[in-house]
């Protein structure tokens, strides 16, 4: 249908980013195709070692899902996006397809093995998340293609994660965010995935920080070394949310906190992690 309407047409998912952009005249589509009336596009299922999220699954549905709680980085992310009203409308598929550099989902999901299922006039295809987000507001989706499902591999035993973001108030995008996923064995870090949000054109994998944790027990020194490596990986811009230096400083604090929460969760502790705001 979008093909018939031409280049001036756009899909409308939860609308919590697109409608504000329309009001600002930043987006000027001639036609909107509302995806909200399509049945069976909102679901959370466990299937063959993966969690599958329908593209139109609302942030609030993920926040309250017992299945999603098993992967804490997903719960942390969903529970802190904007505010209750926005979480009731906004969708995981819409967030990924918009690819806002400050969006939460891409940053949380990039620390997991995440595949995006897409559908277009030529059929369906799956794209790994790292190949899906190309640039700020730019994805691998063709103009007439949409996201149908987000598939997340369930992490192995001995792993846990955390997503921590700092924002100036609830309804706004974070100033910076950090996602951490750890695999531990006998208090030694076997593997780590660390990603930074809002401090680059896309979510940034802080590979230096990951290397700093691998094979280490997670004492203060290892965590500090990793956080400093994350600071070096961040590439923030000064804007109304803060100066570049301030955001680098935030990255250090958020990465430390996320690693600490993830490590405690691996040990079976119940620790709250989510967005922080004044």
């Amino acid at each position: 249908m979008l093909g018939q309407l031409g280049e001036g047409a756009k899909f409308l998912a939860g609308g919590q980013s697109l409608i504000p952009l329309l009001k600002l005249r930043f987006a000027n589509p001639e036609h909107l195709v509302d995806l909200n009336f399509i049945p069976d596009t909102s679901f959370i299922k466990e299937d063959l070692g993966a969690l599958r999220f329908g593209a139109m699954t609302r942030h609030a549905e993920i926040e309250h899902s017992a299945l999603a709680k098993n992967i804490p980085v997903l719960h942390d992310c969903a529970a802190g996006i904007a505010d209750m009203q926005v979480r009731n409308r906004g969708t995981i598929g819409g967030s990924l397809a918009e690819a806002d550099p400050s969006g939460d989902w891409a940053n949380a999901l990039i620390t997991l093995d995440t595949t995006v299922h897409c559908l277009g006039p030529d059929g369906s295809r799956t794209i790994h998340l790292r190949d899906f987000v190309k640039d700020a507001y730019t994805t691998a989706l063709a103009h007439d293609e949409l996201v149908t499902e987000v598939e997340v591999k369930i992490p192995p035993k001995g792993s846990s994660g955390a997503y921590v973001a700092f924002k100036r108030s609830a309804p706004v995008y974070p100033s910076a965010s950090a996602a951490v996923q750890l695999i531990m064995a006998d208090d030694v870090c076997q593997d780590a995935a660390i990603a930074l949000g809002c401090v680059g054109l896309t979510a940034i994998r802080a590979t230096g920080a990951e290397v700093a944790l691998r094979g280490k027990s997670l004492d203060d020194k290892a965590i500090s070394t990793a956080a400093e490596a994350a600071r070096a990986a961040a590439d923030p811009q000064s804007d109304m949310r803060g100066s570049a230096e301030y955001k680098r400083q935030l990255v250090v604090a958020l990465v430390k906190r996320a690693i600490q929460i993830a490590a405690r969760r691996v040990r079976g502790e119940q620790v709250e992690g989510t967005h922080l705001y004044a």
Partner: protein
Amino acid sequence: MPESIPAMAPLKRFVVSVHIRVNGKSYAREIEPRMLLVEFLREACDLTGTHVGCDTTYCGACTVLMNGLAIKSCTMFAVQADGSEITTVEGLEKDGKLHPIQQAFGDSYGLQCGYCTPGLMLSAHQLLSENPAPSEKEIRKAIAGNTCRCTGYMNIFKAIELAGRNMKGA
């Protein structure tokens, strides 16, 4: 004076029919698809209790319930609510009696200018229908999307807590 003013191309007005239940009453209207839900409520239904504060998805003054869930009615098109059940502040009162949430906002001085109050009461409505005895932390989280520039929020927390207690007793 110019001899002739070129005629403006007639505006193509494209309207669609919607059928939205608001506070238990059916509203069938012919509207432009670009009309926001908050405009529909205020202008097509004359229900002006729902306020427009920022019109940028920030302040929550336009919060209403759609099928029981709090949403910002400035961030949704009215056509998207076709077939839905909307509750606005006008729908809280029953048979001339204030809803316990309204009563508690009054009793606890949970409002001053009142502009944000309808939205806050509907966010509180979703919270209390899921959790009648919320902690202050849970209240803070539920109303984080509603900005109040008068009260400093403390009396709003008290009002929501009181409303929860009174609703449980009811």
